[in-house]
C-alpha cells in the first residue's frame, strides 16, 4: 500500500490544491479570491510534471505505461479546461461586491467550484492508477460526483438556471444509475473470478476462460462505464446536460469523465485480453464492444446532423468521438508499434480530442449574446455567423478546431484518426473501418456547417459580443495553435501514447482452446508477456506470487 503512494503524487498535489482552493475561494478579500484559479493552475502544472516523472510501472498495473501518460494528459488538458471554465461562477456576485455589496460567504460559490474541478480531475487520475475494481469504482465516483454539482453551479445566477438545475439532477440520477450498473458488474466480476485485482483477473481468465457470472459482470461493467464516455445506449443525458451547463463546464464534461471512462474500459477489457489465438478473448466482449462502437458513432453523428444548437451538436459529436475511440479498443494492442496499436490510438485520440474539443467549447464560452437585455451564452448557428470577421481570433480558432474534429488533413484530428484506421485494419476489422470512414463523412456535414457559417457567412443579426473573460480566448487560441503545431511535431506525443498502449497479455500455455499447443518444456504453466512497446523493462516478468 505504501508502495502505491509513490504513484500518487500527482493526485495528492491536486487534492492539496483543491483544499487550498476551498480556503482561498471563501476569503472575504476580493484579491485573494481572485487568486483561486491561479492556485488551481499551479497545482495542475505541478501535477503534470509529477505525472511525467511517474516511476517505472509496478506489478499491479495491467497497463504499465498508462499512468505516465494519462496523468500529464489529464493535468495539461485540465489547464485548458481551467482557462475555459474561469468565470463560470460568481461573475454577477463579484461584480455586485465590487459595486459595494457586502461580502456574503454563502453566496460565493467559486470555492466549491474550483475545488470540485480539481477533485474531479483527481478522480480521473486515480482511474489511471487503479489496480483493482474497488479502487476503480471509487475513482470513477470521485470523477463524477463533483461534476453533478459543477453543472448546477455553472448556471447559478444566470439566465436559464432552471435548465441547469434540471441538467444537474438528470445527470445525477442517470449517473447514479450508471454507477449502480457497473458496481453490480464489478461485484459479479469478483464473484466470477474470486479476485478484484486486474492482473489476477487476467490470469484467471487466461487459465480458466470466461464463466457465466464473470461474463455477466463484464457486460454490466462495460455498459455501466459507457455512461461515463456517453456511449450509446447510455448517452441520453448528454445533449441536455451539456446544453444546461455553461460552455466551460460542458467542455469539462466532454473530456474528464470520458477520459476516466475510457481508461476504465481499457483496464477492464485488458483482463480479458485481445489475442484470439490464446482463446482468452471472449467473443462476447468483442461483439459487445463492436456493437457499442458502431452504435455510438452512428447514433452520435446522425443526431448531431439534426441539431440547431451548436452546443447540442458538440454534445452529440462528443458521443461520436467516443465511438471512434471504441474502434481502437476493439482493435486491441496489435503488434505494439504505434501504427498497429489500437490502445495507443485511443490514448492519442484522447489527447487530441481533449485539445480540439475544449477549444471548440472555449470559443462558445468566450461569446455571449444578449436576449431581452440579459447576457446569455452563445449557442445557435446564428451566433457564430461571420465570426471570423467580427472576432478573428475566436473565429479562426473555431474553424481550426472544427476542421480538426472533422479529421481534415493535415490538422491534428486527422493524425488522431489515422491510427484508429490502421490499428483496426491491422486487426482485420475491415467492416469496422468502413463504418468509421462513413461516419467521418457524416460528421463532415455538421462540422463543415460550422466552418462555413463562421468563416464564409456575413455577420448575422444576432449581436454576439465577447463574454469579457480573456482566458477563454486564450484557451481557444491555444487549442487552435495546438491542433496545428502538434500536427507538425506530433511524433513525440505519438511516442508517449505508444508507451501508454502497452498492455499485459496473458497466455495460457496449455490452452484447451483449438489446437492443443505442443508442450514446451521451458514454458511454465502461465506466461505473462508485455504486449507492445514496453519501456526499459522489456519483456520483464510479472510475478503473481505473493
Amino acid at each position, binding site marked *: 500500500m505504501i508502495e502505491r503512494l509513490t504513484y500518487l503524487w500527482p493526485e495528492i498535489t491536486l487534492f492539496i490544491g483543491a483544499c487550498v482552493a476551498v480556503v482561498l475561494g471563501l476569503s472575504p478579500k476580493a484579491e485573494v479570491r481572485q487568486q483561486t484559479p491561479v492556485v488551481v493552475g499551479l497545482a495542475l502544472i505541478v501535477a503534470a510534471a509529477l505525472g511525467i516523472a511517474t516511476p517505472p510501472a509496478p506489478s499491479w498495473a495491467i497497463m504499465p505505461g498508462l499512468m505516465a501518460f494519462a496523468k500529464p494528459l489529464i493535468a495539461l488538458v485540465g489547464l485548458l479546461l481551467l482557462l475555459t471554465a474561469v468565470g463560470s461562477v460568481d461573475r454577477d456576485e463579484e461584480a455586485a461586491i465590487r459595486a459595494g455589496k457586502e461580502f456574503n460567504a454563502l453566496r460565493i460559490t467559486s470555492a466549491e467550484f474550483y475545488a470540485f474541478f480539481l477533485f474531479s480531475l483527481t478522480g480521473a487520475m486515480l482511474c489511471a492508477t487503479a489496480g483493482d475494481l474497488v479502487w476503480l469504482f471509487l475513482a470513477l465516483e470521485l470523477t463524477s460526483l463533483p461534476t453533478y454539482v459543477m453543472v448546477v453551479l455553472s448556471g447559478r445566477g444566470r439566465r436559464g438556471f432552471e435548465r441547469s438545475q434540471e441538467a444537474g439532477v438528470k445527470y445525477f440520477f442517470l449517473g447514479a444509475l450508471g454507477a449502480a450498473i457497473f458496481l453490480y458488474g464489478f461485484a459479479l466480476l469478483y464473484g466470477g473470478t474470486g479476485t478484484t485485482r486486474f492482473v489476477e483477473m487476467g490470469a484467471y481468465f487466461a487459465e480458466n476462460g470466461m464463466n457465466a457470472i464473470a461474463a455477466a459482470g463484464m457486460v454490466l461493467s462495460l455498459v455501466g462505464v459507457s455512461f461515463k464516455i456517453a456511449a450509446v445506449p447510455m448517452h441520453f443525458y448528454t445533449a441536455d446536460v451539456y446544453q444546461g451547463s455553461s460552455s466551460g463546464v460542458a467542455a469539462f464534461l466532454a473530456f474528464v469523465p470520458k477520459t476516466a471512462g475510457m481508461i476504465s474500459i481499457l483496464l477492464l477489457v485488458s483482463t480479458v485480453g485481445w489475442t484470439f489465438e490464446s482463446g482468452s478473448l471472449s467473443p462476447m466482449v468483442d461483439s459487445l464492444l463492436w456493437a457499442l462502437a458502431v452504435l455510438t458513432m452512428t447514433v452520435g453523428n446522425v443526431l448531431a446532423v439534426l441539431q440547431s444548437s451548436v452546443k447540442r451538436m458538440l454534445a452529440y459529436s462528443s458521443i461520436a468521438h467516443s465511438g471512434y475511440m471504441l474502434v481502437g479498443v476493439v482493435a486491441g494492442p*496489435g503488434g*505494439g*508499434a504505434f501504427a498497429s496499436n489500437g490502445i495507443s490510438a485511443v490514448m492519442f485520440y484522447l489527447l487530441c480530442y481533449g485539445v480540439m474539443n475544449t477549444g471548440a467549447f472555449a470559443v462558445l464560452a468566450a461569446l455571449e449574446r444578449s436576449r431581452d437585455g440579459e447576457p446569455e451564452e452563445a449557442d445557435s448557428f446564428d451566433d457564430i455567423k461571420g465570426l471570423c470577421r467580427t472576432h478573428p481570433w475566436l473565429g479562426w480558432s473555431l474553424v481550426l478546431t472544427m476542421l480538426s474534429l472533422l479529421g481534415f488533413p493535415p490538422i491534428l484530428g486527422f493524425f488522431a484518426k489515422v491510427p484508429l484506421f490502421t490499428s483496426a*485494419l491491422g486487426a482485420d476489422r*475491415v467492416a469496422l473501418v468502413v463504418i468509421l470512414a462513413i461516419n467521418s463523412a457524416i460528421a463532415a456535414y455538421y462540422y*463543415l456547417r460550422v466552418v462555413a457559417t463562421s468563416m464564409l457567412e456575413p455577420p448575422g443579426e444576432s449581436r454576439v459580443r465577447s463574454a469579457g473573460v480573456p482566458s477563454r480566448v486564450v484557451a481557444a487560441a491555444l487549442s487552435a495553435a495546438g491542433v496545428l503545431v502538434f500536427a507538425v511535431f506530433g511524433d513525440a506525443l505519438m511516442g508517449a501514447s*505508444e508507451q501508454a498502449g502497452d498492455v499485459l497479455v496473458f497466455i495460457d500455455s496449455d490452452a484447451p482452446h483449438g489446437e492443443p499447443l505442443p508442450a514446451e518444456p521451458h514454458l511454465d504453466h502461465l506466461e505473462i508477456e508485455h504486449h507492445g512497446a514496453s519501456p526499459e523493462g522489456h519483456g520483464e516478468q510479472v510475478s503473481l506470487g505473493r
Partner: protein
Amino acid sequence: MLAVLMLVPLLFAVGVLLAPARRARDVALLGTVIALVLTVYAMFVFDWNFTADRAQLGMTVEWLPRLGLNFSLGVDSVALWLIVLTSLLGPLCVLGSWTAIQSQQRTFYGWLLALQAAMTGVFAAKDLMLFYICFEFTLIPMFVLIRVFGSTNRKAASVKFFLYTFTGSIIALAGLLYVVWFATRTGVGWTLDIETLGRVAMGMPLENQALVLLALLAGFAVKVPLFPVHTWLPLAHTEAPTAGSVILAGVLLKLGTYAIYRFVLPFTPAAVVEYAPAIAVLCIIGIIYAGLICWVQTDVKKLVAYSSVSHLGFCVLGLIALNSTGITGSVLYMINHGLSTGALFFLIGFMYERYHTRSMRELGGLAAKMPVWATFMVFFTMASVGLPGLNGFVSEFLCMLGTFQADSGWGDAEGVMPGATWGVLGPWFAAFAATGVIVAAMYLLYMVGRMCFGPLVEPPAHDEHDEHHEGALPRDLTAREIGVLLPLAALCLYLGLQPSPLMRSIASPINSTVQLVRGASEAPPSPPLMGAPAGDLAGDVPAHGDDAVHSPAGTEVVR
C-alpha cells in the same frame, strides 16, 4: 525544387492575405508567375533521360515517423507534366478573374494560391499519406471558392462537392491503408512510400485486391467523375466562379485520373484486369449518357461541365486499356482536356461577365458582336471535339486505339491481329466509346452554332444596363483576356501537331506501369490472407519490434 513549387504559392497566399485588398490580385499574379517560371526551370533541371525515376527534383523530410509519414517529394515525367499544367493554369486563372472578382479579393486569391500549392503537392507526393493530405486539402479552397464566389445555387453546390468527394476519399484512405498493411505483412515493414508499396502490393490475393479496388474507386471515381457518381460535378461547375471552374476541370478532375494511374493500376493490377470490362462499361455509359445530357442543356456552362464527364470517360477508358497506347493517350488526355476545357470555361466566363446569363435561349449569333471571342470559341470547341490537327484528337484517338487493341484474345502471341496488345477490352468497347465522339461532335457543334452563328440574340434589357452600368468591359475580348487564351490556344495547336516529344517523354514511366500490371496479373495468385490473426501479423511492424518476449522461466501462479 518541388518543395519550392509548393511553398511559393503558399507564401504568396499568406502575402495576399497581408496585402491591402486592392493589391491582392497583383500579389497573386506575381506569385503564380514566379511559380510558373520555377516550373519551367524545373523542366530544365529534370533529367529527361530518366523519366521514370521518381527520385528527381525531390526531397525527403521526416514528418511523423511513427505513422511512417514522410514529407517526401519526387516526380516522374507524367507527374511533372501535370505540375506544369497546374502552374500554367495558375497565372491564367488570376488574369482571367481580374475583373470578375470585385469583392473579397483577398479571400479569393488567397485560396486560389493555396489550391495551387495543394494540387502541386498531389502530383509531387511520393508518400502515400502526403498524397492523401494534399488530395483532401484541395477540397477546402475549392469549397470556399464555390461557396463565396459562386452563383445563385452556390451553397448547395459547395456542400455537395465537399461531401461527395470527402466521403469517397476517406473510403479510399481506408483502401490505401489496407495496402500498407498488406505490404507490412509481406515483410517490407511499415512504409508509406508509393513505389515500395507498388512493388509488393501486387502480391495481394484477388479477393483482397477487389476490395481495395472498390475502396480506391469509391474515392477516385468520384473525383474523376465516373458515371454513377458524377452528379456533383455539373452543379459544382455551374455554380463555381470562372477560375474555379477552370481549375476544377483543368486540374482537380485530373487528380482522380492521376490517382487511378498512380495507385489503382499498380496496387490492384489483378483486380483491374478482372474488373476492367465492368469499369469500361461505366466509362462508356458515362461517355454516351453525359453526352446526350449535354445535347439537351440550355445552360452553356452546364453543357461544358457534362462534356467533362463524357471526356473523362475516355480518359479512364484509356487507363484501363492497360497498354501503353491507351495509357499514353490517357495521360495526354489529362493535359489536353485541361487546356481545351479550361479555355472553354474561360470563354464562357468572359461572356458571362458581359451578359450575365449563360442560357443559350437568350444568346446567339455572338460572332457578329464579338468576333474575337467567337473565333476562340470555335477553335477550342474544335480542340475539344477532337478535330485532327488539334490536341484533343491525338489523345482521344490514342485512348480509343488502346481500347481497341487491348484484347488478349487476339494477342500478338497468336499473331492473329498484328496490332493487338495484351488487355481485356477490345474492339467492341472502342466501337461503343466511338459513338461518344459523334455525340460530342453533335452537342459541341450545336452549342457553338447556336452561340456564335445564326441570328444575333442578346438577353433582353441588357444593352443599356451593360453599356452604362458596367461599361468597364468593351464588347469584345480585351487584350488581357486574349492574353489568357492565346497561350492555351498555342499549346492546343502545338500538341495537336507535335505530340510526339511529349509522348516520348512519358513513354518510359508508362511502360514500366504496363509491365508491372501485366506481370502481376500473369503471376499465380497467392492464397487469401483474410481472417489472419492480428497478433502475429502485426508483429512485422518495425520499431520496437521485439514486442513479444517469452519468458523462459515462466511465472508461478500461487493460489
